[in-house]
């Protein structure tokens, strides 16, 4: 009998949750409604998603330069909105996502980045968010990163491989490498524009690139410290940090780099992310063979 009050509390809690959900005030999370004309900017976290959103937003909305205050409205994040807010986003929608393969997403720009840089970036981001303390070593972090325990989007390898194998040859799929975007931003943004079916003059592209530069984004971050990405975080660690490629070569201990390379050697090789040391890369010697005839299904 003593348990009744506890049951009542949880019933009230459940009623409140249920009411919120029914009235559309709850965040639908992974289970929001997807439309056929939606476009998704997808990547594993810390792979240049925000930068790509800035680039696209600045290209599509030259009248309203993107900043950390309006980016969630210009290119919203599906997981950050309630069902009611999602319903008000004008269509066709361009939205951000970190999801592993989702068959409902029919049109996808997928950004991939060297996992060694991703791991370093997420390590600093988690320190900024106070999800790990200063005593947490990067070696510890990388081990959890490889196991896919640092976020809810699968491991880096799971996220990337599930999208690539399912969609790499599909016309509704554009693969961008973060490293290419750093090296030739305008060229890559022009590819995105033509994928989105947007007219992009060289002037517009140049303006969007300029308005989304790392320097400018750092300044915007300073001015808009209340934006969702920087809210309630350590201000001594910036959100727009190195904004480059290959930083892992100095920031990542050799042991951790090797751990990442061992976990995902074939996938990294396929993406052009070479091994850090001269040794026999796992994928190089792998001769692909087919099961002998007779193995096929009976």
């Amino acid at each position, binding site marked *: 009998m003593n348990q009744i009050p506890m049951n009542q509390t949880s*019933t009230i809690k*459940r*009623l409140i*949750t*249920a*009411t919120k*959900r*029914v*009235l559309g005030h709850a965040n639908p*999370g*992974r*289970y929001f409604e997807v439309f056929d004309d939606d476009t998704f900017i997808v990547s594993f976290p810390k792979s240049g998603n925000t930068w790509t959103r800035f680039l696209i937003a600045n290209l599509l909305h030259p009248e309203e330069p993107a900043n950390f205050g309006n980016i969630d409205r210009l290119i919203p994040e599906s997981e950050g909105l309630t069902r009611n807010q999602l319903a008000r986003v004008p269509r066709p929608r361009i939205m951000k996502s970190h999801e*592993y*393969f*989702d*068959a*409902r997403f*029919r049109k996808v720009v997928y950004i991939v980045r060297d996992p060694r840089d991703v791991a370093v970036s997420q390590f600093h981001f988690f320190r900024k968010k106070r999800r790990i303390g200063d005593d947490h070593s990067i070696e510890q972090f990388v081990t959890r990163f490889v196991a*896919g325990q640092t976020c*809810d*989007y*699968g*491991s880096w*390898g*799971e996220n990337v*491989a*599930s999208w*690539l*194998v*399912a*969609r*790499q040859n599909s016309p509704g799929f554009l693969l961008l490498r973060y490293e290419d975007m750093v090296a030739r931003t305008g060229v890559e943004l022009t590819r995105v524009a033509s994928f989105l079916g947007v007219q992009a003059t060289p002037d517009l592209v140049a303006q969007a690139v300029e308005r989304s530069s790392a320097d400018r984004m750092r300044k915007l971050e300073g001015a808009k410290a209340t934006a969702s990405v920087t809210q309630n975080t350590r201000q001594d660690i910036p959100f727009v940090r190195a904004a480059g490629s290959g930083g892992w070569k100095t920031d990542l201990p050799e042991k951790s780099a090797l751990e990442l390379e*061992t*976990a*995902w*050697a*074939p*996938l990294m*090789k*396929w993406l052009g992310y070479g091994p850090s040391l001269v040794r026999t890369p*796992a*994928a190089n*010697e*792998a*001769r*692909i*063979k*087919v*099961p*002998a*005839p*007779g*193995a*096929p*299904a*009976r």
Partner: protein
Amino acid sequence: MIRYLTAGVKHAFGLYRPGRTVPVRPDDILLASYPNSGNTWMRFLIANLVHPDREVSYGNLHQLVFDPDVSVKRDFDRAPRPRIVKTHGSFDPRYRRVIYLVRDPRDVALAQYQRLRQLRSIGDEFSLEDLIGRFLAGGHAASLVSTDHFGSWGENAGSWLAASFRHPGLLLLRYEDLLADAARELTRVAEFAGLPETTERISQAVARSAPDKITDSEKEQGRDVPLVPSAKSGGWRSDLPKPLVARIEAAWGDIMACLGYELVTRDSHSALESSLLGLLAVGAAGSTGEQREEALVGDTSERAGLSAERTTAR
């Protein structure tokens, strides 16, 4: 408003069907497959294995092996652990123990065509060629049989196989192996999932889940259209015109080759040559070249390379 209130009350008391919102527990076991690939048969096998004292039928199947689209949330929460959950969905990293049941897509396409005609979802004017077009595109073909999106066969199987090369627990089963020796494959499932695996229990479960028994159970439930219409494999060799076979093999030849399905309109080696999946499957099998070679070439007398790899990798 009344509709909203009903939904809300159902939500509060766990009487709704959770669908994809079902909370995943670390010891859950997922039984995943594309539709028309033998999922129902496998659920009967597992249910009969776990519950020898109960008569398993369509009426209670969703209480024994859970289906988020049919079972209600409360049953999920009260179920004995580990729970066995069914899905037709694509890759989902939340589940750490997954049984992926795969079937030759050329047979899946034929099975889907027959089923949609039986259900009268498509009329006589809808040709097999039309069906293959939809089948390859995915999404829309799936929405004919369900409200959810499972992707195309290639997306579904590809996403699981691609991601599972780092997945600590994925057991790959082929429908064709199940047909050839159900007891052997059910024993693999039992070992993987920690279910009873005595010879008697296994053979009893296989006998109780025989396709004709399942069909009888369907009739009792008033189903006109059997879910397990034809338990056979290789029907595509006689019933699927070669140009249509060629379209399927052109789209998914590498996945099929990785699974050990013989290609008849193109060369398996060339299908795998530029394939990311082929690279992943080979590269992930072991740390040495020999181990990797073993993965795709070894153990061919029993099963295709990937299944051999998975059983050792878990």
